[in-house]
């Protein structure tokens, strides 16, 4: 007798359909699981046997061989339990083989036969839908998440017994209390309003430019200048996620074991890892199961590195690949996982170890060598990829008093400007593979049809001649200028806007 059904093995965000076959042979009782299971999956045989007995649909006293194919693909985790149990029951003739063959099963079994919710249901159901499955059976605790995938019929079940009854097993229904996932807070955290920022109009404008063009930002300034406050408000300036991005962000959340809720995540994520983070914590990793890191969780949102020089240099340089390609690829001996890495990077740093260098109101006590060493911890290649490099100052008592009279621009107003500017950029770039100014390569901006008149670029041409900026820096200034023009509603940047763009690049210049 043979029972056959399907489940999904996740590697990064890509799911592969795994066929699960169970064979019942006339031999001494044993449960053999083959097809490269890891430790957690290898224990499935004990969970399945106990769950089957405690649900009142015991397995026969024969040898049950379960094969997970493709047999060469390494498989992880406990999400295969339900499929294994049903395949074994089908082999025993307890449930209908035909019925289980048409449904994909996900879920972990408890010893009492109840189904536990698992991580990564959203990407797994997505993979099932792409592979052409119409019905997916999931634990009740994952039903909301699975239902986010359009065009798939979700069958929520609370226990193995309920699943067996659905597939034609002749048992008395028994109501059990389903195991639900502990909800981990509201995914839409309050982001704070841009209007709360006092003074620093340059920095506020720079954040709007960053949001409009998708530019990476580096903020340099003394403690208390409002760097963290500015960075935390950037997600609030970004428009809602597109349908594709919403699905991807929700999938990553699901994979990372964070709550997804009843609807897709619509607001861009914000991740602020602590500076003691390891490379694996930042870009993702793990030896068995490859899990997404902070950078992947921040994809289509903002990755904020506060006190950037305190991060280990090798950890920061691990971000260079995703910054370049928008993809995070993690290589391990047995697999290669790919995660999206289209985050907008915001780094904040003090100008020196004591933090006071350049502040108007206090004295820096660091020797010049210590200061140089401190900022030097940020590698040149990394800084080179950051379009906006801005110096932020602490506000003065006078600015504080002024702020009571005129409140700054609110997040809602800024987001409206950003949306208009993004639409303008998208329209201009309609026949290209890019949507945002930050994605456009410099050669294209200097190419035919787009090239600016020499009179307009005179200021940055001169800076290039003098060695004030590099060729790469030149391209970044051009990109920023286009974003500033989009924000202003102009069809192409003028000389003043190029000057403003140059200003946004100059925090680090010596």
């Amino acid at each position: 007798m043979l029972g056959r059904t399907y489940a999904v093995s996740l590697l990064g965000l890509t799911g592969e359909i795994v066929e699960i076959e169970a064979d019942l042979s006339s031999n001494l009782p044993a449960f053999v699981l083959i097809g490269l299971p890891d430790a957690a999956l290898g224990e499935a045989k004990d969970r399945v046997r106990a769950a089957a007995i405690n649900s009142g649909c015991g397995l026969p006293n024969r040898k049950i061989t379960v094969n997970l194919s493709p047999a060469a693909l390494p498989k992880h985790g406990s999400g295969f339990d339900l499929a294994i149990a049903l395949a074994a029951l089908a082999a025993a003739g307890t449930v209908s083989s035909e019925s289980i063959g048409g449904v994909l099963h996900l879920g972990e079994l408890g010893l009492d036969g109840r189904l536990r919710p698992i991580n990564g249901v959203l990407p797994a159901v997505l993979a099932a839908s792409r592979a052409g499955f119409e019905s997916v059976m999931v634990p009740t605790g994952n039903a909301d998440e699975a239902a986010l995938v359009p065009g798939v019929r979700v069958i929520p079940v609370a226990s193995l017994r309920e699943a067996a009854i659905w597939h034609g097993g002749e048992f008395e229904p028994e109501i059990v209390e389903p195991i639900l996932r502990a909800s981990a807070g509201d995914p839409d955290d309050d982001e704070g309003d841009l209007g709360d920022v006092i003074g620093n109009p340059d920095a506020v404008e720079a954040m709007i430019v960053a949001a409009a063009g998708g530019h990476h930002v580096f903020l340099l300034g003394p403690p208390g200048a409002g760097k963290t406050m500015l960075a935390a408000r950037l997600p609030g300036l970004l428009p809602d996620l597109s349908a594709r991005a919403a699905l991807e962000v929700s999938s990553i959340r699901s994979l990372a074991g964070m709550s997804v809720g009843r609807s897709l995540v619509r607001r861009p994520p914000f991740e602020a890892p602590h500076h003691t983070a390891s490379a694996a914590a930042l870009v993702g990793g793990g030896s068995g199961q490859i899990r997404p890191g902070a950078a992947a969780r921040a994809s289509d949102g903002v990755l904020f590195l506060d006190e950037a020089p305190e991060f280990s240099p090798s950890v920061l340089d691990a971000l260079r690949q995703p910054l370049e390609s928008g993809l995070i690829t993690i290589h391990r001996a047995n697999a290669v996982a790919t995660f999206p890495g289209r985050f907008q990077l915001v780094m904040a740093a003090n100008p020196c170890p004591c933090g006071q260098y350049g502040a108007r109101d206090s004295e820096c006590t660091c020797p010049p060598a210590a200061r140089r060493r401190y900022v030097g911890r940020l590698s040149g290649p990394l800084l080179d990829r950051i379009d906006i490099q801005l110096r932020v100052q602490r506000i003065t008592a006078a600015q504080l008093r002024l702020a009571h009279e005129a409140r700054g621009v609110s997040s809602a107003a800024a987001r409206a400007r950003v949306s208009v500017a993004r639409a303008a950029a998208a329209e201009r770039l309609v026949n290209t593979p890019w949507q945002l100014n930050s994605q456009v390569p410099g050669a294209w901006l200097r190419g035919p049809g787009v090239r600016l008149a020499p009179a307009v670029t005179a200021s940055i041409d001169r800076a290039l001649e003098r060695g004030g900026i590099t060729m790469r820096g030149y391209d970044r200034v051009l990109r920023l200028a286009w974003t500033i023009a989009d924000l202003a509603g102009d069809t192409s940047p003028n000389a003043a806007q190029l000057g403003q763009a140059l200003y946004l690049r100059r925090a680090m210049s010596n």
Partner: protein
Amino acid sequence: MAAKDALGRRGEEIAARYLASRGLAIVERNWRCPQGEIDVIARDGGELVFVEVKTRSSVAFGHPLESITPVKLARLRRLAAAWCDAHPGGHDTIRIDAIAVIAPRVGDVEVEHLERVF
């Protein structure tokens, strides 16, 4: 005779009768050597069958087949070889079977026979 030994005897008796009713010729029962004991040796056509019989009065402490461990099977295999050594002649094909007998004090007896378990 202890109760468990009596149960075992009864089970072996039931198993032997069962095999005979299936058309197997019983060659020997409870053959002993220094390494242990073979419960039943029978002939099924051209095949020599070594049978391990496991008897329980109920399944409250597990099914009898579950108590036949790989170690026990390996010993049975060694015993089969020892029997063949002790009884020269053409033993081309042998097989090892297991029989579970569930024999409650009152009520019906259940026999389960698994062929070629090793």
